[in-house]
């Protein structure tokens, strides 16, 4: 007990050296508190965001891998890609059997031309000549293949059939809403559909009216849909984005049930005419083309990770890959925060390294200055370990007090400082995205991302706008305080070790003789 009493007296009666130690530790604590709060906030934001995230995934052809394989084998890249087929609904459903999958739904897309009495909304900056180019396209595409290749979609309208209302994400998240009539019956094969307000206004359509859509590959092949509802889209503005065909215009999106669209496509296939291209040897068909996109829903990120392993075990060829645009977008949204968190980590390390070194050096100097005291205490019978305990207690008390003050100061400033730093990171990230977008890298589809664009609602071709996490509650909580205490203990141990070595080496007789 007297050791601590003596330590306290030593602190209070020699304020100079303790103030210096205190200032060093406080500087470490303030910066450490801010940096650790940022790290903690980033980690919490990531964790909480991940828990709240509705994770969905798609299985898509891994074109990059196929192209790379073709490159390595010296094969024809075009041929390799032509061999790439999207999975059929049945195949997609097979993988939905995986234990990790909570729910599964799919959507079917197809392009149509306007039939009699129907005009597409034309907001494109170019003449819509897609219909003219349409006949050349089927031969270059795999039957039933991806419609997102080349210059994009063809036809005047893009019709999407959903197997679940959950897949209609724009309606679920209120960026689109039914303004007239009602949504179609998802399980019905009746050709009911919903159209956009713009299309309805342009053509004077109302709920209950019918529209005629034509097969772009065979104009005399028409199909009639009944309008059961009209929707408006309130999502982000798509003006100024490149639109290559009328079907890419959100206003020309028509939605129906997958059963209804598959029935129409089935009819088209039953009457289709096929021919073989003499030059390429490829089979051409006049049947309506379709693309299918399956969406697997997971309870959490771990299930998604498991799914990736499970599908491989279930026989998914390595030319396909599982992607989650939710996760990708979520991770993108965290990019500035993660960057800031990384900076914070490095900052803590540097502060610890420099602060720790200064502290150790100062404590060594301090102990050497107090050599006489060590000599006297040991000469009057105080054991070296008790002398060491007294000195360590002094360092610990000063460090602890400084850390508490520093943490309080850091806690008071961590939230505004963190958000200011984060705002700078977000601005920087937005500028980067904007610059990349100017060159087309992020517009419409992120570079290297083969996942399908948002097909749940209008705006499937809009550029990916990353909603960055721009504000965090970087307040110093108990974990931060505990971490700082840990740092304090670590610094104390480090500086104490140096002090201990010196104290244990000192011999009272030598010290006192030298002084004499």
């Amino acid at each position: 007990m007297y050791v601590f009493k003596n330590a306290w007296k030593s602190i209070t009666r020699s304020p100079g050296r303790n103030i210096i130690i205190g200032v060093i530790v406080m500087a470490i604590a303030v910066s450490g508190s801010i940096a650790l709060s940022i790290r903690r906030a980033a980690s919490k934001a990531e964790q909480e965001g991940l828990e709240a995230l509705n994770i969905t995934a798609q299985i898509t052809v891994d074109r990059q891998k196929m192209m790379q394989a073709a490159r390595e084998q010296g094969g024809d890249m075009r041929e390799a890609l032509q061999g790439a087929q999207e999975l059929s609904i049945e195949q997609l459903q097979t993988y939905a059997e995986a234990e990790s999958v909570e729910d599964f739904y799919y959507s079917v897309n197809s392009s149509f031309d306007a039939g009699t009495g129907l005009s597409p909304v034309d907001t494109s900056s170019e003449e819509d000549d897609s219909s003219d180019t349409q006949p050349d396209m089927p031969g270059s595409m795999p039957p039933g293949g991806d419609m997102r290749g080349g210059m994009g979609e063809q036809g005047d309208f893009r019709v999407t059939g959903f197997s679940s209302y959950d897949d209609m994400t724009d309606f679920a998240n209120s960026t689109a809403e039914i303004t007239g009539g009602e949504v179609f019956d998802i399980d019905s094969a009746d050709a009911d559909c919903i159209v956009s307000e713009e299309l309805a206004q342009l053509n004077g359509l109302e709920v209950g009216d019918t529209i005629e859509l034509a097969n772009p590959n065979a104009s005399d092949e028409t199909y009639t849909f009944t309008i059961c509802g009209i929707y408006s889209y309130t999502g982000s503005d798509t003006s100024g984005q490149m639109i290559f065909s009328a079907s890419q215009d959100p206003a020309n999106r028509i939605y129906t049930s997958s059963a209804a669209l598959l029935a129409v496509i089935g009819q088209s296939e039953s009457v289709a005419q096929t021919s073989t291209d003499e030059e390429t040897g490829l089979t051409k068909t006049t049947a309506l083309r379709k693309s299918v996109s399956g969406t697997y829903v997971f309870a959490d990120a771990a299930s998604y990770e498991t799914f990736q392993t499970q599908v491989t075990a279930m026989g998914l060829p390595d030319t396909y890959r599982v992607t989650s645009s939710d996760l990708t977008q979520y991770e993108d949204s965290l990019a500035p925060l993660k960057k800031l968190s990384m900076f914070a980590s490095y900052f803590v390390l540097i502060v610890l390294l420099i602060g720790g070194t200064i502290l150790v050096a100062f404590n060594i100097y301090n102990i050497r200055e107090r050599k006489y005291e060590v000599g006297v205490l040991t000469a009057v019978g105080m054991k070296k370990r008790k002398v060491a305990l007294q000195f360590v207690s002094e360092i610990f008390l000063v460090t602890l007090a400084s850390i508490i003050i520093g943490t309080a100061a850091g806690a008071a400033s961590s939230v505004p400082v963190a958000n200011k730093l984060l705002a700078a990171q977000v601005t920087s990230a937005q500028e980067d995205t904007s610059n990349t977008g100017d060159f087309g890298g992020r517009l419409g589809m992120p570079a290297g991302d083969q996942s399908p664009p948002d097909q749940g609602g209008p705006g499937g071709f809009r550029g990916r706008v990353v909603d960055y996490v721009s504000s965090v509650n970087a307040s110093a909580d108990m974990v931060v305080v505990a971490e700082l205490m840990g740092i304090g203990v670590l610094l104390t141990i480090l500086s104490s070790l140096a002090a201990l070595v010196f104290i244990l080496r000192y011999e009272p007789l030598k010290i006192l003789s030298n002084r004499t």
Partner: protein
Amino acid sequence: MSILKLENLGYSYDSGKTPVLENLNYEFENGKLYAVTGRSGAGKTTLLSLLSGLATATSGRIMYLDCDVSKIDRYRYRSRSVGVVFQNFNLLPHLNAVENVLLSMDIAGVKGGMKKAKALELLAKVDITGPLAKRRVLKLSGGEQQRVAIARALSFDPQILLADEPTGNLDLDTQDQVISIFSNLAHAENKCVIIVTHSPQVAQSADVVYQLKTIRSAGKQPAKT
């Protein structure tokens, strides 16, 4: 019965190259005031260091109540059995007079709630009273510091009191006071008081004087007077 006994005690510096003490065979008893005298370099302070357990003999041994000092816990020995008054006092500058005495009592493990009263009593015994007792030791005069050092050495009621030139820095009046204190401790309180000194006055007051001679000139057993 002797409380301290030197048996062929020898000490040398520089790994035996510079002998300072050789074959000392002294005995020290309770109730007596001893003076160890000798010329500078004769090894007086070295002997005191050996007696206090701060140094270890290079030959022979020191027996404390039939225990070899080199084989016992010397921190315990210094804090419980031997009180040392250093030539330079060696007080802790950040503490006041009474705190220096109290710290020594704490180190010795003195128990009880009357410690402060006892410390003040000890200081009063050496004429450090009132505000002096609560003054930082650096603000005390040399004589006052010396007396605080004596009070500290007595704080845990040791059987042996060692003092290195306790009057070296003092004026004549203070010297008399200090000698009187030591004499009283030996004769009234039955302590073994060993004083290393140059002072003939101190030597005259001692019951026994051991005179150390430098090894080179003497080469023989120091005389007992």
